């Protein structure tokens, strides 16, 4: 699974999944922490729709962590102050970079988590759609 989809699932889903996958790696491989989880900023670039140009809306606080497994580097970065999650994300990222065999079995778990995220969002959206206005034309004759 590509990184974009993977990180969406791991960040939007339960933090337990990231912890579980990372633990599988930590218990079997030497994980070297290159950069401990630390706070920093990401500047967010937005496209506006009047002239379709770019500008900066502001920064987001993030926690970032870097690890190494064998010769492969992994980065974990997540909005907010979440040291543990950043570390787990970095381990998972490095595992994919190092093409460790464990990652081959992860797709199923990730897809299941994605399904749960989607189902929760459908529920949320169903509720939001209750606030959709149902216009009635008034008889003014």
């Amino acid at each position, binding site marked *: 699974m590509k990184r974009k989809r993977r990180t969406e699932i791991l960040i939007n889903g339960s933090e337990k999944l990231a912890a579980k996958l990372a633990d599988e790696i930590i218990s079997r491989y030497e994980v070297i922490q290159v950069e401990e989880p630390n706070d920093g900023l990401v500047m967010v670039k937005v496209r506006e729709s009047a002239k379709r140009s770019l500008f900066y809306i502001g920064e987001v606080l*993030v926690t970032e962590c870097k690890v190494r497994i064998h010769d492969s580097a992994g980065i974990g970065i997540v909005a*907010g102050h979440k040291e543990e999650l950043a570390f787990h994300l970095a381990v998972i990222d490095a595992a994919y970079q190092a093409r460790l065999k464990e990652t081959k079995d992860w797709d199923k778990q990730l897809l299941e988590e994605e399904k749960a995220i989607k189902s929760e969002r459908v529920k949320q959206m169903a509720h939001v759609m209750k606030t959709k206005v149902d216009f009635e034309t008034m008889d003014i004759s």
Partner: protein
Amino acid sequence: MGYVAVKGGTRAIEESIKRLKYERLKNGTVLDVGQIEGGMRSLIDQVMSESSLYSPLLASLAIKQAEGSPEEAVFLLRAYRSTLPRKHYSRVAEPERMRVERRISASFKDIPGGQVLGATTDYTHRLLDFELMSETEEAVQRWLSDFYEDSFRSDEKVPSEYFPKVLDYLRKEGLMEICEIDDTEPDDVTKKSLKFPSSRSQRLQILTRGQTGAVTSLAYAVIRGYGTLHPTVGELRVGSLPVYIDDPVNESQEEEESYYIGDVKVSEAEMLVPVTVEKERGIEEVEFEVGYGICYGQNETKAIAMGILDNSLEQGEARYPTQDEEFVLYHIDSVESTGFISHLKMPHYVTFQSKLDSARKTKQTEKVREGQKDEITL
């Protein structure tokens, strides 16, 4: 007279800071940061937007420390932000890809996807709810449980969280210019000071981090006559905008290999402004321009006001203060304006003494002249 340099006040300042802490704590109430984050959504959104730093947790802490003063909380966050390293720049976030939780248009009744009110105070009676005085945790849990049960039983087909842009409708009809995508790297006012004439990216950055009240007041002035616009809300949406960064190790720009870092909640307003355009052979036609507003959090008034000021500044006629970029952009920043006004409280003994000296000298000269006049009259 001569001036004497003085120093002092260290102890008084220490005691004053202690007294400030006493004011915060004297009732014995320990305000939990989690409670602020849970219940002060609008204030947190305002503080994050004005400080230009998205972090509900830090905003809540700043609000606690500042005892609820938005200007002080913004000051604290701006100061803290300056201590953190900027690690990355995001990929371009497209508000069109926002997961919408509220989306309305004041210009068109029937819009694809419909008018979705979401959570809004717009239709509340604004009657003070005294029942909140005795709200209990049990009652809240009961209410929530009923809410979930009632809400999530829907088995109707649920539409997508993504909504088409209302204004695409006008673009398709040819009533609005279709701009080419402009990928020029934006300027950053936090890295390089603003100079005039400003770039569009600088203007939008300053507007989005502007003080809510100042941005709103100036936009109101535009409509009241200190400008030329009377816009309508083409589309207003509130929702979550996903943020991604490119792979910094391999310097890949492939979207599928980017890192998702989380969502930011934003309010976005596209303001429709009718303009008369002269076409071939002097024929005049009405077209629409868009004023663009977006800000962190649910702060719709600010997003709309920003949209109004964006279009106003694009006009750039110096006779209207609200079209004068220096007038608008130099006065709407919270830290700059409140900082300058409140610095007037700091000791100005020397400057004031020199003014006092001048005033005394003028008075003395006048007295001498009056004395001379009296002598002549005699």
